[in-house]
């Protein structure tokens, strides 16, 4: 009969032999890869632009913005000047109309007849 120590060793050896690795079902790596790829968030495509071009592009954008501000301001001032001129013209026309009406009235009072 085996001694307890020998029996224990024998049992442990048997355990080690019996507990061999077990393979998962066929295609395990494919299934994990599919899940891993599905889990990766879709990232926006990044386009690399050379430093020099980025600097030129930055300068061009800044110049465009400055030009826009300048020409916008210019157009605004021009519009204001046009409006002021229009108002002055209308005022002059009203004064002229009144003056003409006044002169016409005085001539009419003096017995001068115009037209037919």
């Amino acid at each position, binding site marked *: *009969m*085996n001694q*307890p120590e020998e*029996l*224990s060793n*024998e*049992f*442990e050896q*048997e*355990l*080690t*032999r*019996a*507990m*061999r*690795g*077990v*393979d*998962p*079902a066929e295609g*395990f*790596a494919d*299934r*994990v*890869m599919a*899940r*891993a*790829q599905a*889990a*990766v968030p879709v990232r926006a495509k990044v386009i690399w632009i050379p430093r020099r071009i980025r600097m030129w592009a930055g300068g061009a954008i800044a110049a465009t913005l400055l030009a826009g501000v300048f020409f916008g301001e210019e157009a605004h001032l021009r519009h204001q000047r046009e409006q002021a001129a229009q108002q002055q013209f209308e005022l002059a026309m009203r004064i002229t109309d009144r003056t003409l009406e006044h002169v016409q009235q005085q001539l009419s009072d003096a017995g001068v007849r115009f037209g037919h």
Partner: protein
Amino acid sequence: MAIADDEFRRLIETHQRMVFSIAMRVTGDPSTAEEVAQDVFLELHRSIERLANADHIRFWLRRVAVHRSTDALRRRAHRPEAAAEEWVEDHSLEDDAPISSTGLQARLDELLRALPEPMRVVVVLRYQEEMLPDEIARMLGKSAASVKSHLHHGLKLLRRKAAVTMKEYVREPA
């Protein structure tokens, strides 16, 4: 930087047997083991940047496989260890009863499933992964004394169960 697909596949193929075997023997269920093993590798995919080398990856996979397997076991409704305790109470045997090794392999997974979880984990790591008690203790964050105690009692229970299983096996044909 994320790991390249072919490198990740190589890691899966290298370690899938180890991870699946731990999950299979701890959970005792092939479909749960498959799910656990997949989750472990997906976690590896997310954590690969923090792992320095092949040894670190192997150690990490073992540890995560054990933790995810015990988590899955705890989520399951039934508790085989409770039945195991009753089973042990009903069958008091001599510790050093002679055991034949014949037929043990066929019964082993069934016997392991009946072990309480902490003993099962330690037995799997000791005899499947051939880790030393100190290594198991470090991996599980337990004391070496606790691991040795689980190992000792786990083996004792397994031997008892194996002895009874073999007796039944021999008696049935007669």
